[in-house]
């Protein structure tokens, strides 16, 4: 971030900037929710339920909304997904529940707005106390490492089953990427913290902040002091471009900028490049490009070495970028970052690429220079190996960098489980992380109690 400090601050007022980061999809009004809920056909064997990674009983909660039972609807959602509130805001529903909705068929081609209804129920719930009861205390203690969606979901489910949980979190705040990574216009205001506070109100969960595994905290200690350990470390490293040393030093990881953006109380403090280049083709690339635009960057160019059809960002996300006025350049691969005489970023040189007959990407001798004051890289997150640097942690079996687990979320070390982005299962989505945490908790509970009964 220091490399951007020479850039000007936004000319817009703090209030004006804040207003540009309000909800991407505003909440439904009660009347809209009523009308939308009536559209649900209450399918049997509903495809949306299957398409939701956490298996929320969508027809059931929508029917509860339709019949004016918001607390019932909220409970149905939270039963399956304790972070149903943030999932309703961040899930790429166009590839999940809403894609499966039967109302997509020709006659209407318009799915029920499941996520907005989900948000309506969670935002409208009025429980007098936490809606989940804890089972009688088991006396078992479980260590969870990481207070992101996976860790929190696991902790809540364990607490519900009567176990006591201690979460070790490296940062000063809980929430993981909900707090530090999701686009500011998707999770607005202080929602991530409010949701965590609600989750913790079940009781039995203690969070210790500033405690990082691999930096002072050892896996062996956790295994010794707790009955089970759940690792929910996420992906803390940003992949870097394979370029020369100075280019490497001049690029900014999109996630770093977003972290600062999400944490600033006053957006006028942020350095804002008048023009920016974003390298990448996934949702993070779209997020940084759109947020730069909203901060006031005039020219934001997203550059991808392949074609639009190869981008991992969903068409819905691509449309958000187009609507924000982001320029898209395809078939160009980074060569080096161009600096001005003060050593600040002035632009970037790309090599034109094309698809060879065999489908492989090949470079041409044509180059392309794009002027820009900042280059953001969003080419993926990677597992931060430092977390597993102590003696025992080093022995954990891994798959392409991430922690290997079986389908009960067990790692190669007895008593150690893992889930969320740090394991190699499914897609890196908040809702998947929630599901991992929930299932891992069930597996831990089953194992602990099965053994307890046998004893």
């Amino acid at each position, binding site marked *: 971030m220091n490399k951007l400090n020479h850039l000007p601050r936004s000319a817009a007022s703090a209030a004006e900037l804040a207003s540009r980061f309000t909800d991407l999809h505003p909440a439904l009004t009660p009347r809209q929710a*009523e009308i939308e809920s009536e559209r649900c056909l209450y399918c*049997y064997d509903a*495809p949306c339920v299957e398409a939701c990674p956490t298996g929320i009983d969508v027809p059931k909660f929508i029917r509860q909304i339709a019949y004016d039972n918001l607390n019932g609807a909220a409970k149905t959602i939270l039963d399956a997904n304790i972070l149903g509130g943030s999932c309703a805001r961040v899930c790429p529903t166009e590839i999940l529940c809403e894609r499966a909705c039967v109302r997509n068929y020709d006659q209407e081609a318009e799915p029920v707005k499941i996520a907005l209804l989900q948000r309506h129920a969670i935002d409208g719930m009025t429980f007098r106390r936490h809606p989940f009861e804890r089972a009688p205390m088991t006396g078992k203690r479980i260590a969870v490492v990481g207070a992101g969606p996976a860790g929190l979901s696991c902790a809540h489910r364990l607490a519900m089953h009567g176990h006591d949980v201690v979460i070790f979190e490296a940062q000063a705040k809980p929430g993981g990427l909900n707090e530090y990574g999701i686009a500011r216009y998707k999770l607005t205001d202080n929602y991530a913290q409010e949701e965590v506070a609600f989750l913790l109100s079940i009781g039995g969960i203690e969070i210790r902040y500033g405690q990082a595994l691999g930096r002072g905290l050892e896996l062996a200690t956790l295994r010794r002091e707790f009955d089970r350990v759940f690792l929910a470390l996420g992906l803390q490293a940003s992949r870097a471009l394979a370029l020369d040393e100075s280019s490497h030093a001049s690029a900014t990881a999109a996630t770093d900028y977003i972290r600062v953006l999400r944490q600033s109380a006053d957006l006028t403090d942020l350095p804002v490049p008048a023009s920016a280049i974003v390298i990448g083709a996934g949702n993070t690339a779209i997020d940084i490009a759109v947020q730069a635009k909203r901060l006031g960057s005039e020219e934001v160019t997203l550059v991808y070495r392949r074609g639009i059809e190869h981008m991992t960002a969903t068409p819905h996300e691509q449309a958000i970028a187009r609507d924000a006025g982001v320029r898209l350049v395809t078939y160009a691969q980074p060569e080096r970052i161009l600096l001005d005489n003060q050593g600040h970023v002035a632009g970037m040189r790309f090599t034109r690429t094309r698809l060879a007959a065999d489908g492989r990407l090949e470079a041409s001798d044509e180059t392309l220079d794009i002027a820009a004051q900042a280059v953001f890289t969003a080419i993926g997150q990677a597992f931060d190996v430092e977390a597993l640097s102590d003696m025992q942690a080093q022995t954990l079996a891994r798959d392409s960098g991430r922690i290997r687990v079986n389908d009960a979320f067990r790692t190669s070390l007895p008593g150690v489980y893992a889930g969320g982005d740090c394991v190699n299962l499914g897609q890196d989505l908040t809702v998947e992380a929630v599901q991992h945490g929930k299932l891992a908790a069930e597996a831990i509970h089953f194992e602990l109690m099965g053994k307890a009964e046998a004893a």
Partner: protein
Amino acid sequence: MMATNVSGIIDSTNDVDLSIDFAGIKAPNPFWLASAPPTDKAYNVERAFAAGWGGVVWKTLGEDPPAVNVSSRYSALYGRNRQVMGLNNIELITDRSLELNLREIERVKRNWPDRALIISLMVPCVEEAWRTILPLIEATGADGIELNLGCPHGMPERGMGAAVGQNPDLVEQVARWCKQYYSKPVIVKLTPNITDIRAPARAALRGGADAVSLINTINSITSLDLDRMVAHPIVGGRSTHGGYCGEAVKPIALNMVAEIGRDPATQGLPISGIGGISSWRDAAEFIALGAGSVQVCTAAMLHGFRIVEEMKDGLARWMGEHGYARIGDFSGRALANTTDWKYLDMNYVSIAHIDQDKCIQCGRCHIACEDTSHQAIAHYRLDDGTRRYEVKAADCVGCNLCQITCPVEGCIDMVAVETGRPYMNWTQDPRNPHREVQEPAAAM
């Protein structure tokens, strides 16, 4: 008047004439407003005529002093998208003085000579009351009277309305007095709050009535305020049952109209159909079951008088497309096909057919049939993860439930199966221990 011109154009282009002669009462079209708030006073009625209604039945008149109404009067049954399915009211007859109403009626009839203007009446069940009021009614120049013997709330407690309508002898008696003291057509409005609607209709005919109209409202409680533990509408902290009308009552009204239409004892008695009529199609259905005119209340109360434009236009176009030049051409046409259950063809077989191209895989047909009918729709998961629903022809009894719950129109059809077996009704069916005839094919 603009409205007449509009219907004039439609009539000529389609060779359709919507005008009617109902028991001697002439009207440019069969759409009348029922006796209720829309016909409460000259202001509303003149607006209704300007909008194109063929006639009105003036809000029920009674003896002075006029009735007094409470505040908070209506409540509703809502559909899933806040459409009003049914309306409930606890209003009484007119709350304005007799004199004021009569003067207005006289003036309106003079201004709108081509429209049917009928006066609804409710006075105590004594001859003197009718003999006194009918000459005043006659003097207005109105085209006829409708006897309100069917208001289900408030008035019965005063010995009027439904109390009279529920007693066929009184119905006959009142009709006779009216024919005695009034020279123009007498219509008896029937209450549906009775077991067999044919009894009061026969009584009306015996008393000399020229026609019947039905239905008036049905005793009802639509909903409760569960916090306050009181039904709607709430008057202070209390409520009372009201009269139900609107779309939800149409099926009840249609059946009652058909019952009278099919009854040999009342053959040919003109019927003015009322109850839930909201569209030209509803009107056509009442007419097909024997109505000669139709009356509308709730639909107008919810949307205003302008709805008549589409009612007239739609009916005229439909008639034109089906070669019906006049209302009489199809009035009662569906009666012959409306019969008793025992005359239905036991040999007729239809089974559900799902159009797989239209199916959206919601599974509603499957779960409906599986849980509550005949387990005749199979649920398959295909290799690509999609669902497929198929009718098991051998198990389908042709009940129509799947077709009814299917959200896609035209996706499930009930297809007639050729069995090669002749018509055989229950009176002929060998499975009937009480059958009347032994040889199925012989009788019909």
